C-alpha cells in the first residue's frame, strides 16, 4: 500500500512538472475568429512547418473584441486570425492592433488589404439569403431575391438573423443596408425588418443551421456558411443573393499590439496569406472566396461567383460601429442576445 502511494506521488509530481514546463522553439497564442476546424488545421500546419508551438482560442468577433479590450494592458495573444475586419478596424481605433505589412501581401489585391497594414484579408464571403426549400413550399412562399422581398407578409415570423451587436455577419448586414440606403432610410428598413424576425441569434452562422434544420424558412447569413451546411447534409438548403447588391466580409489577419510573441506573430501572418494556407479552408468545410491571387477558390462556391457587390467601406463600417449599434438597439428595442 505504501509503495503504491509512493509510486502514485512520483507519477503525479513528474507529470505536473512536465506539463508546466514546456518551452521550446517558440510559442504563439492566437485568437481565432474563423471556424474551429479551420483554426485547428491551420495552426497544426503552421506548427508543422515552422516548429512554433501554436495554440488558439476560438471566439466570435464580438467576444474577441471584448477580450482584447480587457487585456489592453497585458495582451496574452499575439494574433487575431479570421473574422470580419470591421472588428479589426474598431480594435485599431482603440490602439489594440500592431500594423504589419507582410511581404506576402504583394499577392493580395489592394481592395482586400488595409493600406497601412492594420489588417490583411485572407478570405471573402458574400452576404445573402438562405432558405429551406421544403418549408417555403409548405408556407407557400418563394425564395426572396431582394432586400425589399424580405419585408413581404409571407415571411413574417419566418426570418432569422444574428444580432448585429454580437455577430460580425449581422453587423455586415446592418452596415450594408445603411450604405445602400443612407442612415435614415436604412434604420427605417431595419425597423420594418425587425417585425419579420422570429429570433435574433448570437452567432452569424446559426441562421444557416436553423434554416437547414427546418426550424425557420429564411435566414440571412454568409453564403459560404449556407453552402457548408448544405454540404454537411442539410439537403433542403437553397441560396440567393439580393438583387440590389450585397455586402461582403473580408476575413482578416492582424497582429495584436503588445502581444508576447511578435516575431512568431509576423511569421504567422506571412504564412496565413500564402496560397497553400488559404487553400486549407475548403478542406475543412469553409467555402469562402480567397484573397491570394494564386489561390484556387473552392468549386462549391461557383454558383455565386456573379453576385452583385456594393462598394463596402470597411473603414467607415469599423469607425461607426459603436454608433450604429446603439442606433440599431434603440430603433428595434433589441439587445444582443447572450446565447
Amino acid at each position, binding site marked *: 500500500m505504501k509503495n503504491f502511494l509512493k509510486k502514485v506521488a512520483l507519477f503525479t509530481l513528474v507529470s505536473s512538472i512536465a506539463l508546466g514546463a514546456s518551452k521550446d522553439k517558440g510559442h504563439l497564442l492566437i485568437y481565432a475568429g474563423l471556424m474551429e476546424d479551420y483554426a485547428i488545421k491551420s495552426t497544426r500546419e503552421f506548427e508543422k512547418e515552422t516548429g512554433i508551438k501554436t495554440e488558439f482560442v476560438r471566439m466570435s468577433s464580438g467576444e474577441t473584441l471584448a477580450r482584447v479590450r480587457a487585456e489592453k494592458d497585458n495582451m496574452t495573444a499575439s494574433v487575431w486570425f479570421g473574422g470580419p475586419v470591421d472588428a479589426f478596424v474598431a480594435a485599431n481605433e482603440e490602439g489594440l492592433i500592431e500594423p504589419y505589412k507582410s511581404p506576402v501581401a504583394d499577392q493580395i489585391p489592394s481592395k482586400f488589404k488595409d493600406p497601412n497594414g492594420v489588417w490583411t484579408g485572407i478570405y471573402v464571403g458574400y452576404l445573402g439569403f438562405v432558405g429551406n426549400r421544403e418549408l417555403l413550399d409548405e408556407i407557400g412562399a418563394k425564395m426572396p431575391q431582394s432586400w425589399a422581398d424580405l419585408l413581404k407578409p409571407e415571411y413574417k415570423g419566418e426570418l432569422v438573423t444574428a444580432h448585429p451587436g454580437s455577430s460580425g455577419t449581422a453587423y455586415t448586414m446592418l452596415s450594408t443596408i445603411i450604405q445602400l440606403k443612407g442612415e435614415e432610410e436604412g434604420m427605417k428598413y431595419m425597423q420594418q425588418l425587425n417585425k419579420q424576425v422570429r429570433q435574433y441569434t448570437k452567432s452569424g452562422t446559426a441562421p444557416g443551421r436553423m434554416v437547414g434544420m427546418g426550424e425557420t424558412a429564411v435566414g440571412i447569413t454568409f453564403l459560404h456558411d449556407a453552402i457548408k451546411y448544405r454540404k454537411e447534409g442539410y439537403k433542403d438548403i437553397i441560396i440567393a443573393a439580393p438583387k440590389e447588391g450585397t455586402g461582403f466580409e473580408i476575413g482578416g489577419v492582424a497582429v495584436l499590439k503588445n502581444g508576447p510573441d511578435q516575431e512568431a506573430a509576423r511569421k504567422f501572418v506571412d504564412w496565413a496569406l500564402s496560397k497553400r494556407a488559404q487553400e486549407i479552408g475548403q478542406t475543412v468545410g469553409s467555402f469562402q472566396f480567397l484573397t491570394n491571387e494564386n489561390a484556387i477558390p473552392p468549386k462549391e462556391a461557383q454558383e455565386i461567383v456573379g453576385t452583385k457587390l456594393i462598394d463596402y467601406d470597411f473603414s467607415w463600417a469599423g469607425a461607426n460601429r459603436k454608433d450604429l449599434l446603439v442606433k440599431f438597439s434603440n430603433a428595434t428595442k433589441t439587445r444582443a*442576445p447572450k446565447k
Partner: protein
Amino acid sequence: MSNFRIKLETSIKNMKKMFYDPILFSTFTFVMVILILFILLPMFNVLKESFTYNGEFSLIHYRNVRDMHENFVIILNTLKLGVVTSTISTAIGFFFAYAMTYIKVPFKKVFSSIAILPIVSPPFVIALSAIMLLGRRGYITRTLLGIRNAEIYGFKGLVLVQVLTFFPVAYLMLVGLLQKIDPSVEEASRDLGASRWDVFRTITLPLMVPGIANAILVIFIQAIADFSNPMVIGGNFTTVAVQIYLQGIGNFDMGSATALAVILVLMSVSIFVTQKYYISKKSYVTVTGKVSRQREKISEKGIALPIVIVMSIITLGVFIMYIMIPLGSFVKLWGINNSFSLEHYRYVFDLGMKPIRDTTLLALISTPITGILAMIIAFLIVRKEFFGRSFIEFITMMAIAIPGTIVGLGYIITYNKKPLVLAGTAFILIIAFIMRNMPIGIRSGIAALQQIDPSIEEAACVLGANSKKVFTSVTLPMIKPAFFSGLVYAFVRSMTLVSTIIFLVSARYNLLTVAIMNQIDVGKIGVASAYCTILIFIVFIVVGLMIFTLKRMGINDISE
C-alpha cells in the same frame, strides 16, 4: 472558572500539543494554506470584486442587479427553476423509493441501476438526447408524432432534463430512510384498524417529511447551481449560473458577474445551512431503533401492477435517453439524414483528440491527490483535537454548497494577476479538480473513520507509533474501501466537470466537456454525441480498472 475560560485554555493546550507533534503541525499548516489559497481567497476576491468599480468601493453592481429588469428576471427564473425541479424530482424519487421498498418489484437490480447513472455520466447526456428525441427534428416529436414546432429549448425542456437528471438523487436519499422505518410500526397501525392508504397517510408519509424536505433542498441547490443544462437547452430562459458566465467571459464584465455570483452563493448557502442544521435534526425514523423484522412487500396485483408499470416507463425513458448518445454518434445528420456514418468519430480522432487527451490526463493526475488529501483532512477532523479544527471542517462543508461557476469565477479573478499567475496553466485546472472533489471525499472519509473504534489507533500510539505511522499503518488500511471509492468518484467527477472549468479553459488546455458544449452550440449533434460516447467509455474503462485493481488487492465491497 467560567466556561469561556475553560474553552480557551483547552484550545491553547491543544495548540501547544500540536507543536510537539511536528508531523501533525506541518500537515495542519499545509492544509490550512491550501484551503485559504484555493477556497477562501477566491471567494473573498469574488466578494471584493463585486463591491469594486473603477478601483473604488461601490454598490453599483448590486444596484444594477436590482434595477436592470433583465437581471431581476434571471434571478426569478433561477428560483422558479429550483422550486419546480426540486419538487417534481423529489416526488418521482419518492415514488421510486416507495415502490422499491414496499412493493414486490421484479428485476430490482434494473431499477436500482438507474440510481447510479447520474454519477457516471457527463452532464449533457440527457440534454442532448432530449434535443434528439423531442426537439424540432426530434425522433419522437417529428418522426413519430409529426409535430412541426416542438420547442424543447426553454423552461419546460430544461425542467424535463433536470428532473430526469436529479430524481435518482432523491431516490437514493429517500430509499435509505424508508428502509429504516420499522415495519412493526406500520403493522401496529394496520392492527389498530388502518387500511393501507391510512397507513401511508398517517404513518409513512409523516415519518418521511423531514427526509422529503431534505431531498427537496438538496436538489434545489443542485438545480440552481446547474450550468451545463441551462446553457445547452435553456434557450431564452437564462439562469444566474449562466448569466455569470456570459457576463464574465462573454462580456468581461466582472462587476456584474461577481455581484450575481454573490447572490447565487447566498441563495445556495442559506438553503444548505437550513438543510444541514435544521431539517437533518428532525428525523423521527431512527428513534425506533433497530428494525425488528424484514418488511413484507405488497404483492397484490391491484396495487403493485400499475406502480411497476409506471416505474418501468420512467426507467425505460431514462435508458433510452442514455442509449441515444451512442446512437446519435453514428448518425450522419440527426433528423435530416439518418444514415450510418463514422464521420463524427473520424473528425474526433483527426482534429479533436486534444480535449480528450488533456482531460483524461488532468483527471488522472488530480485523482490520487484528491483522494489522499481528502483522507488526510478527514483524519485530522475526526481524530485530532486541535485549534482550528472546526474551522477546517466548516470550510470543507461550505465548499460543497458553493456552485461551480462561482469557484471558476473566483479562480479566474484571483489567478490572473501576479504573483499568482496560474490561469492558463495545468496547475489551476488540477487544483480546480481537486478542490471541487475533495469535500465529498472528506465527507465520506469522515463517515468511514467514525465507524472505526478510536481505541485501535490509540493502541498503536501507546505502542510507540507517531502520527504518520498511525495513519499509514493502521488508519489507511482500515478505510481502504472509502478511500478507493473516493478515488473513483473523484475521477468520474473530474472527467465530467463543467461549471468550474468553463472559466478556466484556455488555449493550452481544452477540456472534453467544454468541447462537447461547443459542438452542441454550433449544432454538431453528431460530434457532440461522439465525444460523449468516448467520455462515457473512458469513464467505464478507468472505473472498471480501479475496481479490478481493488479486487486484486482484496477489497471487494465499494458501495458507491
